[in-house]
């Protein structure tokens, strides 16, 4: 090998090495690295397939404020059951979190829900100005009944009241499994679910747990578990 060809080979290898060692270049379709990822199946059951696309969204239920229906939107349009993956790219707004009177830490719970894009605008489009089920134009079409999301803005040690009930919580997202015994029922008069006055048993499960979503036609067909808001009493 001549000196010049050796030099050229060296430069080429160095260039390839540099390319291989670098980070991927992010475009404007990059939304950040996920804080957590929820995945599972969307199941129809006996319900006919929706006429419009379904979105997987996250609905935060705060005690003192209107609900926040936020989160990343995942288009579910394949045949059913359809798999989905939802990256949680940012924390919920602080208003969606409740304050623990014991530690002062902030903690919130959310349902993973399905919305139908009735107006076909490709985005979550609901009116959450009043409590209860959000008004349209997009339509609520079910979700996970016994699995919910929790987000801890602050750490909750195992010795704390919340830590004793849920286990120690580090800041960030957590996936929680609730006892099916304490499911809520739909109340037309309140336009919301009515939950029994009971303390739901909630335990953390890993995010590898499938969060399957049930498609419903009417709100009364969906029986979510009660969010453990008693923790903040």
């Amino acid at each position, binding site marked *: 090998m001549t000196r010049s060809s050796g030099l050229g080979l060296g430069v080429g290898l160095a*260039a*390839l090495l*540099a*390319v*291989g*060692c*670098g*980070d*991927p*270049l*992010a*475009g*404007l*379709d*990059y*939304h*950040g*690295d*996920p*804080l957590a990822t929820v995945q599972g199946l969307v199941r129809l059951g006996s319900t006919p397939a929706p006429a419009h696309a379904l979105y997987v969204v996250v609905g935060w239920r705060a005690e003192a404020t209107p609900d926040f229906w936020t989160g990343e939107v995942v288009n579910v349009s394949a045949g059913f059951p359809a798999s989905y993956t939802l990256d949680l*790219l*940012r*924390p919920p707004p602080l208003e969606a979190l409740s304050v623990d009177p014991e530690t002062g830490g902030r903690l919130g719970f959310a349902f993973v829900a399905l919305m139908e894009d009735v107006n076909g605008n490709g985005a979550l489009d609901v009116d959450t100005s009043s409590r209860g089920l959000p008004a349209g134009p997009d339509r609520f079409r079910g979700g996970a009944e016994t699995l919910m999301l929790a987000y801890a803005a602050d750490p909750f040690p195992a010795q704390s009241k919340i830590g004793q009930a849920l286990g120690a919580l580090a800041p960030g997202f957590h996936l929680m499994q609730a006892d099916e015994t304490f499911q809520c029922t739909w109340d037309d008069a309140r336009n919301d679910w009515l939950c029994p006055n009971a303390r739901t048993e909630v335990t953390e499960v890993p995010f590898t747990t499938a969060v399957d979503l049930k498609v419903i036609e009417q709100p009364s067909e969906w029986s979510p578990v009660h969010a453990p808001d008693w923790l903040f009493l």
Partner: protein
Amino acid sequence: MTARALPALALLLAAAPTPAAAGTARYALLVGNNRGHADDAPLRFARSDARRLARILIDLGGFPEENTVVLEERRGEAVRRALLSINERVRRSVSGGGRAMLLVYYSGHADARSLHLSGSSLEIEELRKMVAGSAATARVLVLDACRSGSATRVKGGKPAPAFAIKIVDRLSSEGLAVITSSAASEDSQESDGLRGSFFTHYLVSALRGAADRNGDGQVSLTEAYGYAYANTLRETSKTLAGPQHPTYQYGIRGKGDFIITRTDRAAGHGALVFPEGGHYLVLRDGPQGAVVAEVLTERRARVVLPAGRYFVRRRRPDLLLEGWVRIAAGERARLETGAMRRVAYAQLVRKGASARALSHGPQLGYLIHGPVAEGLGPISMVELSYPLSLRHLTLAPRLAYGHFGGDNDYLALEQHEVAASLGAYHAFDLGHLSPFVGLAVGWTLAHQRFESEGVAPDRTSHLLHIGAEGGLDLHLLRGLYLQLRGAALTFVGREPRATITYQAAAGLGWQIR
């Protein structure tokens, strides 16, 4: 085989006086053979060299057309017969006490003993004796012999063993001069650029007046030889085959020098006057035309050319001037060097018209390239380049910096980008414009920072790019030029794997040298 006479243009010259003393009849035999022996590589310009010299002799030398015989691709026997015939005419011409000049010129292949004439041979010694034995009072034999054709042409090749054209005895004969285009152990050469042999090219220029050092309007054989010698030696020293030293032997005792051409009274011709010393090329039909004269002079000089419009190029070590001049019959046209266009340094190098093999200088410009990843662009950059122009290729190392900002519903992105690249292109010079095409390769370092409610760590990415580019240099004044460039580039990285995008640039450059 029949002798081929030149066209009747010479009839126009019938009234032209002969350069030699009044009453001297002039005869010429010019032989041009591109083909030699079977193992000789064909030459390209031997025939045209013979025609060119014949034209000069008729136009400026007072050689009547009927006395000027041009033989092309003829065998040895035909040459022998033609020379015997001319000698007979010379003998009859001088029998009444008149004077005569005989000039015999050969361009073609030869070896140490004989000329190679289309598969036949003619002994050089026999030819010399035939010339020496002529009854002419002035006899000139010019041998521009190239033995191995392409092997010794400027384009290179394998030189054949050296040979010497030997003129056996000293030129005891009075009134005999013998010129060979190269010395022993040397090959004579043709030039594609000159479209002729070096020696004949300079001999023709000399006879047009370039060799008229004393300015008396006459070019003597000694002046012509001196001019052809100096310039043939200078130009062939740059070739692969090496320097070529023409030789000149004469025995003119008591007869003075031979005047070959006169440049002051040629019908249908005009004079081009070079007001100051320098190196000038005069081309017919424009920059790509044939070189009709090459003048190297230290002082004012002139050449005589047929009336018409000519392109003149003046060479200086770091400068090239070009312009047009119209020559009217019977008039003098002065070359206005101040009005000639100055050729850019890079064009100079590309023309091979400079002693320098490299032109260079900085260039600063604006560059924009299309998105390499989704929504990531177009990105504006500042580019600093330093093009190096060689004869056939320009290499342009470039360094660019750019910044880009953008956002989406989740984050805001800020990117700083540094790119190092190398462009390699070939330029085509068209007056003030030099369009070019080539390739570009490079490396880009991109650093990205994000503002996000979530997690989006900084990223440092490396990208390689390669692609085709093209553009245009517009030459302004004193080495300044404007460059417009476009490219289609493929960027390759860890992610995205490969993206094709565009690049456009505009820059202002300055060629220092």
